[in-house]
Every structure is written in structure tokens, then in C-alpha cells.
């Protein structure tokens, strides 16, 4: 008996002895832990998720791009140059010579035209980013075409602000796919969609090696990349959901970068000299949506009072700890026309008098649908405690992400605490959801955030549309500032924070790039000491 147990213990010890974990990743490979289970497709015409966008940003080239530090600077990528016609309705792009896809096929204007047409024809979630310029399945082949091998022409239906059109082309739907390769895998006229969901046909600095859903995504360097081959020959992204596990992997040196550390983990690695942090303001906003179907919340004085009833500073410093900055207007800092003043701060007395004016000196009861993750729950609890001081009884209804969202989208909430990320880099993306609501009825055909909160945006809808047609960028920016001020004052949104993304990495990793959106997080410049 004793021998048996001793034998088993020894056996286990021996079995574990010869496999000391290696403490360093290879010099020419980048290994990352990242929660990538939001990826549901690898087709750039369908990708609309954060980690999917990052994949496409590193594997596909677009016609144009913007400077990560100053997004007003738009530069050519596959397009060498471009022109906008006098009437503002025709965009002509000159495609760079000598670029090849990973397949070895030449990249021509024909591929670019096909890729943009394909987005409209497939009509997946992000298709509206191009579709809003008047392209439909019927007309797109006449409106977007290759005039010759190296000239792409795009005809929009109205004289839009050129910056609006160009910013939309920098989004994921602007990725150029290999027409020949994609069509070789076409099934039942699907333009190769089923195939491209799990395969690759691009020209970017990295190409897909293997995607195993829920487990890992690995990329290989494109040695012939026209703008210089990456130093990292391989990038391996491992899906690690649990942030504490990410921290251990990073501290141990089994990975180079951990992407999803939470506040307490960031605090505990702060004094580790082997680890450094990189942070970048992202476009996502944290906000409260106040349903105007609720009798209390539809009172303008109550809305104003609630904007004074958030401990902006406390939440930002302790709960979100470095992962956000206070921001109250609907355009994130960095966007054209962003209004960066934050007029509201925690002010209990002011809120009390506003509530008294509204006729609720003793407060009222409301519910808030809250996603049950650590930081969102903590934010909700902070707000609950603050509101209790003025007699507002806030009941937190916890739920899973998709569950709270389902309720929100069906307009069945009182208050929803949420996060909104812009779809592309132009101000219209957020204006068209926070300040635009053409039809406030239950069966409306467009359902922006203003609609979800049952808010009739009044003349702001028309003003938002007008701003897309203002061709002078300075005037255009002013129009957005005006829209933001009005939403700040009257809107059913308590916008609180702009998100900051933090990547925690080993000290020997250099030049990892975080951009304003996940599309522009780049691996191609990374070097390792």
C-alpha cells in the first residue's frame, strides 16, 4: 500500500521533471495572448469585430490609410495618388505598380474594383460603410470600375465631403482581395465568401497561416511585402480568455504581449521591470443610455441632473485605472471635429436642485441593465452609490453581454450601460448614431442609438445629414462641434469615458503599434532585442 502510493508520487514527479518550461519565445516570432473569440469570420467584407479588424489590418492592404498620430493626414497605401472631380462625385485612384498578392497574382485596379463591389454585393454587416454613398447591388458595377490596369474610378451619388468618402475607404471594407484567387473558390455565386471566411487572399505584410476558432490564430510574414518585409517571421496569437492567466504567461515569458489585462493585474505588474506598457486612446466610448420611454428619464432636468451624478474621476482612476480618460462628447478625441471639453463633473448639490426643479426632490426608482463583467459591474455600482445620495434608487439588472444587448435593442430597458465603438474614422459614424434618428416609431427601418433610447433628435437629424455634404473641413468640424454640444445638453446619453487600450509586453519587444482603432494595431514594425 505504502509502496503503491510512493510509486505513484514518484512517477508523477519523474514525469514532470524533464519538461521545464522554456522561458523565452524565439527572436523572430511574436507570441501574444489575446481574447480573440469574437472572430467569427476572416472575410474582410464581413469582418466587423475588434480582433477580426486587427487581423485584417495586418494581412490586407487598403487603397489609403491615415497617420495613427494625426488622423487628419491621409496617405496612399495601394493607391499612389488620387483625385476628386470638380463636382465632388468622382474619385479616381492611381494604383501602385508591381504589387503582388500572396498567391503571386499581380494586384491591379481590377482587383480593387472587384473588392469594393464585392462588399456591396455580399451585403454583410459593414457593407453600409460603402453603401451610404449610393451603391446598390444593381448599380455598383457601373459606379465602381477599373478604367485601366492601374486606374480605379468610384462615382458617388452626392457631392459628399471628400474626407468622409476617404475615411470610409480606410475602414476594413476597403481591403483589397485577390480577385482571381477568390473567384477560384466561388460556390453558387457567393463570390468566394464561404471560402474566404476561413482562408486568405490578400497582399498585406502578413499572411494567414492557420486559424483555429477559440484556440489560436497564426500569421506568417510576407517576405515580398512591397513596403518592406516584417522582422517577425511569425505571429502567434493564442486565445486566452482569463486575464489572470494572461498575466502569468507574460510574467513567465511564455508570451511577448498580453492584451487583456484588467486593472488589478496592471497594478500587480507595475513593479515588474521586465514588463512595459503601451497605451493608446481608442475610439470606444462608455456611456449610459437613458430610455425616453421612462417617465422620469424623459424629463430634461432629470437627464441634466444625472450628468452631474457620475463620479467621473473616481471611476476613471480606480475602476478603469489607466484604461480610459474622461470624455463626454460623442466624438472621441482624435476625430475630426471632436469636442474635448468635459462640462460635467460630480456635483451632488447641483443635481439635487435640478431634481427638485423636475419635481422629484426625493428621487425615484429605475433599473439599469448591466453586463456582468468585473469593470462594468464596478462602474454600475459606483453610479448606484452616487445616485443613492440624492434618493434615486438604482436597481442593477445583471446579464450576459448578448442578453443585455438584446433587451437594449428591443427598447425594453430603463438605463443601459454600454460601450460604443466607431465603425470608421469619420465623425459621421458617431453622429449618425448619437444625433440622428429619422423615425422614432417602434418599427423604424433605421435603429441608431438615439432610436434605441427612444429619443427624437429633432432638427439634429437634418443637421447630421448636412454635415456629410460640407466640403470645407474647417466648417465641417464646426458643424460637428455644434451637434456634440446639443447632444451633451439635451441628449439621452451620459457619455463618460473614452477607452484607452493597454498592451503589456516584455521589455525586449519594440515598435509594437497601437492605433486609434483595432484596424491600425500593427505588428509589421515589431523588433525584439
Amino acid at each position, binding site marked *: 500500500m505504502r509502496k503503491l502510493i510512493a510509486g505513484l508520487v514518484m512517477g508523477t514527479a519523474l514525469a514532470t521533471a524533464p519538461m521545464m518550461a522554456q522561458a523565452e519565445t524565439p527572436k523572430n*516570432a511574436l507570441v501574444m495572448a489575446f481574447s480573440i473569440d469574437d472572430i467569427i469570420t476572416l472575410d474582410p467584407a464581413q469582418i466587423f469585430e475588434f480582433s477580426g479588424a486587427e487581423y485584417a489590418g495586418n494581412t490586407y492592404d487598403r487603397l489609403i490609410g491615415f497617420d495613427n498620430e494625426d488622423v487628419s493626414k491621409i496617405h496612399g497605401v495601394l493607391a499612389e495618388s488620387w483625385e476628386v472631380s470638380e463636382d465632388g462625385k468622382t474619385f479616381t485612384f492611381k494604383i501602385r505598380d508591381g504589387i503582388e498578392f500572396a498567391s503571386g497574382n499581380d494586384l491591379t485596379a481590377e482587383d480593387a474594383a472587384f473588392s469594393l463591389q464585392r462588399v456591396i454585393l455580399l451585403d454583410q454587416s459593414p457593407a453600409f460603410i460603402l453603401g451610404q454613398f449610393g451603391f446598390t447591388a444593381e448599380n455598383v458595377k457601373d459606379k465602381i470600375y477599373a478604367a485601366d490596369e492601374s486606374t480605379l474610378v468610384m462615382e458617388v451619388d452626392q457631392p459628399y465631403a471628400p474626407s468622409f468618402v476617404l475615411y470610409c475607404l480606410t475602414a476594413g471594407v476597403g481591403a483589397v482581395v485577390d480577385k482571381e484567387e477568390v473567384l477560384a473558390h466561388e460556390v453558387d455565386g457567393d463570390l468566394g465568401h464561404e471560402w474566404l471566411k476561413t482562408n486568405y487572399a490578400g497582399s498585406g505584410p502578413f499572411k494567414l497561416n492557420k486559424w*483555429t476558432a477559440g484556440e489560436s490564430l*497564426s500569421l506568417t510574414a510576407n517576405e515580398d511585402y512591397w513596403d518592406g518585409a516584417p522582422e517577425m517571421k511569425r505571429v502567434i496569437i493564442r486565445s486566452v480568455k482569463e486575464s489572470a492567466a494572461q498575466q*502569468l504567461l507574460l510574467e513567465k515569458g511564455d508570451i511577448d504581449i498580453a492584451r487583456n489585462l484588467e486593472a488589478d493585474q496592471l497594478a500587480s505588474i507595475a513593479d515588474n521591470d521586465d514588463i512595459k506598457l503601451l497605451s493608446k486612446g481608442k475610439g470606444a466610448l462608455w456611456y449610459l443610455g437613458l430610455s425616453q420611454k421612462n417617465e422620469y428619464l424623459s424629463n430634461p432636468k432629470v437627464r441634466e441632473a444625472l450628468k452631474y451624478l457620475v463620479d467621473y474621476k473616481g471611476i476613471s482612476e480606480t475602476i478603469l485605472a489607466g484604461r480610459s480618460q474622461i470624455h463626454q462628447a460623442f466624438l472621441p478625441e482624435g476625430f475630426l471635429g471632436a469636442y474635448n471639453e468635459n462640462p460635467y463633473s460630480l456635483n451632488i448639490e447641483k443635481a439635487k436642485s435640478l431634481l427638485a426643479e423636475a419635481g422629484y426632490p426625493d428621487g425615484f426608482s429605475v433599473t439599469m441593465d448591466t453586463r456582468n463583467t468585473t469593470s462594468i459591474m464596478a462602474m454600475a455600482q459606483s453610479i448606484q452609490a452616487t445616485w443613492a445620495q440624492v434618493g434615486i434608487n438604482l436597481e442593477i439588472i445583471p446579464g450576459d453581454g448578448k442578453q443585455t444587448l438584446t433587451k437594449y435593442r428591443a427598447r425594453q430597458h430603463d438605463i443601459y450601460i454600454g460601450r460604443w465603438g466607431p465603425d470608421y474614422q469619420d465623425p459621421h459614424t458617431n453622429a449618425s448614431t448619437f444625433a440622428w434618428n429619422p423615425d422614432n416609431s417602434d418599427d423604424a427601418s433605421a435603429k441608431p442609438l438615439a432610436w434605441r433610447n427612444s429619443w427624437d433628435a429633432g432638427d439634429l437629424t437634418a443637421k447630421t445629414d448636412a454635415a456629410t455634404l460640407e466640403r470645407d473641413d474647417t466648417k465641417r468640424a464646426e458643424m460637428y462641434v455644434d451637434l456634440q454640444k446639443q447632444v451633451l445638453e439635451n441628449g439621452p446619453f451620459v457619455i463618460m469615458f473614452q477607452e484607452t487600450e493597454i498592451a503589456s509586453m516584455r521589455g525586449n519587444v519594440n515598435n509594437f503599434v497601437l492605433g486609434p482603432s483595432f484596424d491600425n494595431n500593427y505588428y509589421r514594425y515589431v523588433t525584439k532585442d
Partner: protein
Amino acid sequence: MSAVTRNNRNGRKRARFTSGPTGTVLRLVFSLAITFFGLLLVTFLIGRVLPIDPVLAAVGDRAPQEVYDRVREEMGLNLPLWQQFFIYISNVLQGNFGQSVLTANPVLEDIKRVFPATLELATLATIIGVSLGIPAGVFAAVHKGKWPDHLVRIIGLAGYSMPIFWLGLMGLLIFYMKLDWVAGPGRLDSFYLDFIEPTTGLMLVDTLIEGDTDLFWNAVSHIILPASILAYFSLAYIARMTRSFMLEQLSQEYILTARVKGISETRIIWRHALGNVMVPLVTVIALSYANLLEGSVLTEIIFAWPGLGLYITNSLLNADMNAVLGGTVVVGAVFIGVNMLSDVLYRLLDPRARR
């Protein structure tokens, strides 16, 4: 799942009274079909009353309304419920479990990928749990009321009451971070992931097939910690059951007779008493194994282990119903399979059951 077990047991009892093997097989097939149908129906209904919109998983939150409406129609969600179920069942009968929205793969392919990960973990955990749990239980029974008994009880209680989430993280902190005895989360070191093509999907087997001992030891160093932690739980259960079964046997008269005959104490305990205990123990072990095969979600999350539990949970939270239903069928099949296996073992071990 206990309903399935019960069904199956009843089936067995009834089967014993029918004559001839054909009747037994027919009854078995019939009861299996009913069980699976019920399983699918209940899961399907639960999936449809979940307050989660399945279209969201497919198009995301920011898709325009037209795309949302079109996809909703494509997914057949605008049809009446009975019709949706009918379509689903007829597809399943043709061997088509549909496609997962989340992974863009056919559900069967997904399950072929995730199930071996869970199978490997559960099997190893059960082996460890059995090989430590039975001796511990015997040990406790023989020394009833003395310190070995108390020790086993404390270990068992701790194993039962400690949250696996905490235990997993502590395990990683101590054995991976501090002591460096085992590897971290995942089934292999990250940069090995690309080098292995799944043949069986069982990492320990695949690496041996490829003849790569480095990879094999790497896989071992990754699985040993999560398997030990899961094993701790089944160990606690198995030890407790072994102890009580053993106590019952040790108080029987045949043990006294054996002692009077002068048979050595070792032989009495390990041969006579344990031999009789093995019969009910098989059922206990089978149940605990079947439970592990469902996949332990928390363990899979902490150890970044892409197994069945994580797959089904994630699918459920996204209302990815094809994946949930496919996973449920697998879990059901596993339970039924393990039960049948334990029946067979039961017959082998207990001569009376063969009659």
C-alpha cells in the same frame, strides 16, 4: 443528465425480462431514439426562450437593420417554432448538424476538434483520480476513526469545497510560476501550435504518432496540472464512496470467516473486500468520468483549454443554437455510452448479473 441514466437503467431491467438478443437490441435502439429526441426538443426549446437574440452573434451590434432582417430570415427565425424544429430534426437525421455562427465551421467539425481536448483531460483526470482515490478510500476504511481516516476526510472535504477557479489559479501560480514544474495555460507552448496537425485530436497521441518526443513532453507538461486539479475533485468523491463501500464489506461475516481461517489481512482487504466493492464502484467512477467529459468550463477557461465545456457555454451565451444542440447530443451520447460501458463492466465483475 440523471434522467438519461435512470432511463437507461430501467431499460436494462426491462431488457432482462425479454427473451432473445433481438428484443434487447430493439428496445435499446428505441429507448435511445426517444432519449435523443427528448434531449434535442428540450434543448431546442430552451434555446428559443433564452432572452438572447441569435442574430446578434451573426451580424454584430452595429449592423444596419436591413442586414439584420435578411440574416434573421436566412437563419429561419421568422418561421413558427414547430417548423424550425422540424427543419432542424430532418437535417440532423441526414447527418447535418448545421453550421456554427461563431466559428464559421460545420458543428460536427467543431466538435471533432474540441471534444478530444476534453476527452484527453477527463481520461487522464479519471486515471489519476481512480489510482489515488481508491487506495485512499481503502486506507481510510481500514483505519476508521484514526488519523488516516481523518486525513482522507479533510482532503476530500477540501477537494469538494474549494472553488476550482481559485484552485486552478493557485496551481498555476505555484507549479508554473514559482516552481517551474509544469507548463502554463494551453495544450502546447504557443509556438508549437502550428507544428501539429490533428489526427486523433488527442495531443498526447498525435505527438507520439508524429514521433516528436519534445512535443509529447510539452503536451504532458501542459496537461498534468489541469488534469490533476480535475482529478482532485473526482478523487475526493471516489475516496469517500470507496470508504463507505469498504466499511460495509468489512463488517460482513465472510470477512470474519476469512480472518478466522488465517488469511493475511492484506489479502482480505485488497482481494476479498475490495473485490466486492469494485462492482458498485464501477458505477461511481463511470458517473464521475461522464461528468468530466461534459467539460469543466472553469478549468477550460483558466487553462485556455479549447474543450467541449467552453465551446458549449460560449455558444449558449451567443445563442448559437446549432452548436449548442450539437454539443448537447455529444454530451448525451457520452452519458449513454459511459452508462452502457459500466453495464458491461458490471456484468464482467459480478457473476450474478450475467445470469
